[in-house]
């Protein structure tokens, strides 16, 4: 499906407003295949809106978003999306396996799952280390576990581009380490875009960082420093670099 030489995601001259209040303007962004990009920025800065524009869930007022050279809506089956788990109704009766199987929809006409779909769903669940929760009710597991189930659902899509919205919110350090390792593994074969508040997480995993505050500026992660964060957030932010050996005695995690 991808055109030769096409970037995974290309955004040019993007402008988007809610009720005439500009949320994003003059946004240009190019994400190459197998890139790993982290989107950071203050609350209300337009991070999630940018993600939804890439997914095709919102349409730009001006400018263009292309996924592998085509409109996002046409490429939606190639996008794996992990929303925030808090987005879900806590009383909805659905099991963990049923949630992950939703990632297998859209592969053929009709909505029946085959044995192969169940196998892929179970493999995805195993990848996030939650095979033992297969039959549990989604709302009855912890927030961190729900976040991992949603990651497993995105993996079950077998999509080439993964977009994650705040995947480290409400998960403990050990789970975050597991997520870090999983994303690093997935990045060998997939393009990964993550929205996060966790600047430390961004600094330790991603190749590039996109700072979003109505406009977007991208930098190599190596350039991320206190001055840049101060400019982005308008105040000092504690940057905890997650070197993923911080649990070890004597390691220096603070920067």
């Amino acid at each position, binding site marked *: 499906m991808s055109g030769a030489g096409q970037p995974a995601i290309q955004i040019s001259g993007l402008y988007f407003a809610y*009720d005439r209040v500009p949320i994003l303007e003059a946004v240009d962004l190019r994400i190459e295949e197998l890139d790993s990009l982290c989107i950071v920025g203050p609350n209300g800065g337009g991070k999630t809106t940018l993600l939804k524009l890439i*997914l*095709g*869930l919102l349409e730009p007022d001006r400018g263009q978003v292309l996924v592998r050279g085509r409109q996002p809506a046409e490429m*939606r*089956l190639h*996008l794996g*999306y992990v*929303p925030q788990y808090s*987005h*879900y*109704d806590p*009383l*909805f*009766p*659905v*099991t963990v396996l*049923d*949630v992950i*199987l*939703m*990632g297998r*929809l*859209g592969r053929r006409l009709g*909505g*029946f*799952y085959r044995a192969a779909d169940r196998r892929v769903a179970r493999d995805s669940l195993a990848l996030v280390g939650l095979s033992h929760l297969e039959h549990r*009710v989604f709302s009855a597991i912890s927030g961190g576990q729900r976040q991992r189930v949603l990651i497993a*659902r995105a993996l079950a*899509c077998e999509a080439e581009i993964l977009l994650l919205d705040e995947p480290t919110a409400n998960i403990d350090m050990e789970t975050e380490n597991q997520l870090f390792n999983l994303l690093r593994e997935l990045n060998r074969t997939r393009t990964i875009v993550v929205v996060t508040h966790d600047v430390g997480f961004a600094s330790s995993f991603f190749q590039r960082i996109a700072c979003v505050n109505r406009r977007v500026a991208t930098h190599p992660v190596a350039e991320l420093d206190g001055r840049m964060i101060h400019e982005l957030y308008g105040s000092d932010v504690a940057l905890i670099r997650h070197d993923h050996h911080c649990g070890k005695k004597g390691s220096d995690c603070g920067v």
Partner: protein
Amino acid sequence: MFEFIEALRHPDVAFFRYAFLLGALASISFGVMGTYVVARRISYLAGAIAHCVLGGIGAGLYLRHKVGISWFDPIYGAIIAALLAALVIGLVSIHARQREDTVIGALWATGMAVGLLFIAKTPGYVEPMSYLFGNILLISQTDLWLVIGLDLVVVGIVLLCYNQLLAVSFDQEFAWLRGLNTELYTLLLLLLTALTVVLLVRVVGIVMVIALLTLPAAVAGTFARTLRQMMLGATLCCLLFVTLGLALSFNYDLPSGPVIILVAAVSYLLALAGKKIAAY
């Protein structure tokens, strides 16, 4: 209870047998569609549809008795009004960025107003209270066939589209990303809800139909782990509430609609209390 069973078999009270059969058969559609209404938290949409039904019934009565279109049963007017209301509400719900509740509230009251005006202009033929609060004397054999048809349509569509409807109900954005036509499935759910509401208006009336749509599903939802379990539980609960409600209303000479609803409401409170106790 013995007298109730006798009454069901008695040839002179066919209306009572029809009421029971209608309630029992409709429990299937009510259990299935009520589950979607409760799980998706759209009972206010179903409420608006139910109240628009009065507009259709009023128009149907007027056309039949005043205009002289004798074949036009008020139930046809009710079905048309419910489907139109479901379409308008569905489109507003899908496309409106704001003021959705205002539009739905306005439609709710307008449907009632239109119905009452038509009924006022068709005096002597109908008692509005029968439609507002239900009257089992209104149930005919035709209604039974309509409910059987509805059950077949509802169960058939849900069996075919269970996974898609589950995905759309749980996470509409993700369902769209998986290539599903989420607007179509949303409209389909509302249209099926509209048809279900119309046919149960006969038993419990427009004002109380939403309670019978949502309370059995709410009771089942306190214990169900999956949408399938909730549908099955809601169907059984609805059957139980209708049977118990009709038996009590027969034994104590009370109007059946309110008794059925009170049985359902008490059961819901007991289910909530049972869940709290089980959690300790």
